[in-house]
């Protein structure tokens, strides 16, 4: 039989053992550890934890082949509460540790849980390099726009002017847009979801887990203690529709209720702008932008990510980019297994002896 490479996307979970067909169905309970959850009452992390615990059974994976690696911060306590393998590491370094694990163990579904400070400040370097390499990881970035664990300093996603304990006159630090950053680093999967929108969150998580390569999911998460209401305008039903831009592959990008819907067009200059449905129909203000996360060129996704602003006038949610590109860990393993296969199989004692002797030996006695 010959096999033809059809270039089909390969699942991120391809080499991870799935449950046998006759196995009982997993439930949220199977993924709940015996540890008492210690976030503050009302923390958005509870909602995300519940969503992840109830979503994981959908993957149908053997629980022991799932690993959560986190850094430091409130969100990084996450692994303790999941009955999978888990490592609560050090500040900012989870993507590096996960890279070592994922590269050496293709049979694992490796997740990174991080926050805006952990991922974008102290760990910014590791994040961009994981994205650039496209290691088979799923990164959940909980963005609450504040340092919570250290009790309320501004973070690299805090908006300019935000008053915090360390910025009593307002922050003068320009914030990162995590989605723009990830796209700039040529991430192959970038999405954003709201902690409170459970269905949307689960859909995004599933797509992210099944993506082969680094998947970055930014999750807006409320910190009720130090930055309460940061995303209130997006949660408030009366404003939600006018602000949240739901990205749907193959569809025009729109915002607003039916009676006041705006449509995203690209003007002649290349700039994107929301115009009324009527204006969009005539095409006089520009061509309607159809969302295509599979575009090889990340420019359009990047432009869409820039619709966002600190005022949250228009906030795109959903999958910005989802493309297939060889993953770092697959390529690394292919080089090793290629060398091993070419030499006729795993190195035995005689192969090691040959290596130790090298090419230039002499004998005494």
């Amino acid at each position, binding site marked *: 039989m010959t096999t033809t490479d059809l270039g089909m996307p390969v699942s991120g979970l391809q080499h991870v053992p799935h449950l046998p067909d006759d196995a009982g169905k997993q439930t949220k309970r199977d993924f709940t550890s015996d540890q008492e959850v210690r976030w503050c009452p009302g923390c958005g992390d509870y909602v995300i934890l519940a969503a992840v615990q109830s979503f994981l059974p959908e993957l149908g994976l053997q629980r022991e082949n799932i690993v959560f690696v986190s850094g430091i911060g409130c969100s990084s306590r996450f692994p303790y509460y999941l009955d999978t393998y888990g490592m609560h590491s050090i500040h900012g370094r989870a993507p590096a540790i996960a890279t070592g694990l994922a590269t050496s163990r293709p049979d694992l579904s490796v997740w990174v849980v991080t926050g805006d400070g952990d991922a974008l400040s102290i760990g910014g370097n590791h994040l961009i390099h994981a994205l650039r390499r496209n290691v088979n990881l799923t990164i959940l970035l909980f963005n609450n726009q504040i340092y919570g664990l250290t009790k309320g300093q501004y973070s690299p996603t805090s908006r300019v002017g935000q008053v915090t304990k360390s910025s009593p006159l307002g922050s003068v630090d320009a914030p990162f847009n995590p989605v723009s950053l990830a796209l700039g680093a040529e991430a192959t999967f970038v999405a954003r979801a709201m902690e409170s929108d459970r269905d949307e969150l689960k859909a995004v998580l599933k797509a992210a887990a099944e993506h082969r390569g680094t998947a970055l999911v930014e999750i807006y998460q409320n910190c009720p203690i130090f930055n309460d209401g940061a995303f209130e305008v997006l949660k408030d039903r009366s404003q939600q529709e006018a602000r949240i831009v739901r990205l749907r592959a193959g569809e025009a990008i729109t915002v607003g209720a039916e009676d006041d819907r705006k449509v995203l067009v690209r003007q002649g200059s290349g700039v994107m702008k929301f115009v009324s449905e009527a204006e969009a129909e005539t095409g006089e203000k520009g061509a309607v932008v159809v969302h295509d996360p599979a575009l090889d060129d990340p420019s359009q996704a990047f432009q869409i990510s820039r619709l966002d602003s600190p005022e949250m006038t228009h906030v795109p949610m959903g999958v910005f980019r989802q493309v297939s590109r060889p993953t770092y860990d697959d390529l690394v393993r292919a080089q090793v297994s290629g060398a*091993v296969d070419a030499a006729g199989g795993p190195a035995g004692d005689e192969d090691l002896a040959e290596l130790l002797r090298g090419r230039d030996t002499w004998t005494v006695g």
Partner: protein
Amino acid sequence: MGPPLTSKAVQTLDRVVIRFAGDSGDGMQLTGDRFTSETAAMGNDLSTLPNFPAEIRAPQGTLPGVSSFQLHFADHDVLTPGDAPDVLVAMNPAALKANLADVPRGATIIANTDEFTKRNLAKVGYTESPLEDGSLESWHVHPVALTSITVEALAEFTGLTRKEKERAKNMFALGLLSWMYTRPTSGTEAFLQKKFGGRPEILAANLAALTAGWNYGETTEDFASTYVVQPAPMPPGTYRNVTGNTALSLGLVAAAHRAGRPLVLGSYPITPASDILHALSSMKRHGVTTIQAEDEIAGIGIALGASYGGAVGVTTTSGPGIALKSETIGLAVSLELPLVVVDIQRGGPSTGLPTKTEQADLLQVMFGRNGESPVPVIAAQTPADCFDAAMEAVRIATEYRTPVVLLSDGYLANGSEPWSVPGVEDLPGGPVELASAPNATDEKGEPVFRPYLRDPDTLARPWAVPGTAGLEHRIGGIEKADVTGDISYDPDNHDRMVRLRAGKVAGVTVPDLEVDDPSGDARVLVLGWGSTYGPIAAATRVVRNTGAAVARAHLRHLNPFPANLGEVLRRYDRVVVPEMNTGQLALLLRGTYLVDVRTHSSVRGLPFTTVELADVISSTLEEVR
């Protein structure tokens, strides 16, 4: 193929030290490497010391641009690269000026006269050529127009530019020296075939230059005789020449092979450690994975992640990299996972002297972390010993589930010596077992896994890797409850965990320190660690040859120390500790054993000389007489 016959007189020598010195672009390291290879093939014992600037190409012809390679070879066992050259090959005035102070009067200097131009002389502050002003009267100077003779010898290579021809002058020098010391050139010819196989004209030119150098020695009257150094009596075996970094790489691969675990290196390039990354990345056939990380911190994070997954995780670096990795070493102490951290020490602080050697990271690796964070520390002693040291590091890491620091330095890393290649069946170590089943029962009698339930003998916790059903657990840098590994802020638990981690490291099995004291009468002990092994052994030999008694011992394990170390120290009237730092081991010894050890310190970026240490020993002997 043996060396060709010569028509000239042949003298026999017992040892020779040659130093090749030239501009960074002159190919001196390659020349030295090739001469070393030829010498190894002759069966001499040898030791080498490359010495090069951190700049890849400093301005041509200047003192900072001088690169050198020293080789000591003998008909007996060689312990150091030699204090002073018997022969200096100086490819330009800068090389002469930078090295002359090390060359004893009466020694031989071969100088490339073509480079002794007015301009080049002025660059290094000579107003007159030292080859002509009589200032080198006390040396045997052979002025050789190396460049122009090489170019002339390559006249028929019309496809090559003059520059390309000039570049072959290092092969001319190698040919000349090979003739002088009756070294076989067949190995070099084979090497050139391989290196320039794709460029036939360059290959032919280099071969022609090599032969021209040989013939020059044979035909000119300037060189009256050739020299023979008989092979050294060495124990039977198969030998190869290895640098410390090569031996260390091989040791890591061999140890992982014996352990039955894959080797994963996470590393960021840094001098003088990068050669290990290079070597291991070409060993994929042995299942070795190398990941060149975005920074030092990621390098060790990758290694730790791989260890968590069941591999032998290794990271390689130098002192500045250790500083960056410290937090992750602390995490590994807390996680109690195997990890090998290799520190090829160089001159510091900060960037310091990247290409020069030093032993000043000992206290950094011992204590440079927050909290009580003990790690086993071992040190390699000679280039070939880097192999054994690497195997020992992997043994401790995997058996005790702990990060281990392996200290080498720039001198060992780049220096080389013959290595008796061990048989695989004779290598230490064996399969390392991973946890596969629950290790306890809960209150209901159900089997459970307790990630911090320890082996009563080693205090090591189980190595339970993801993918193992029934052993799902969480670990982290927050203090954990004894046995269960759950988060715990309990004061007594923290106190207990600190002591458990310390006890585990203190309990690492370490052989007793062996003291070399042939007469048994010594009242002075010279104690060293790391790369001072060769100079100390050579110096004690010199002193003993005068009839004096002196004891010598060398520490492989710096944490924990051998159990008999305190007793050994107290046995002597004086203990001298030569270190290429300002007294770091001495501080540990004084603090641990309340013994008044004496430091002999040098931080010049170079290894100790035998003469220097012999003087130190002799004057100490005077004191206790």
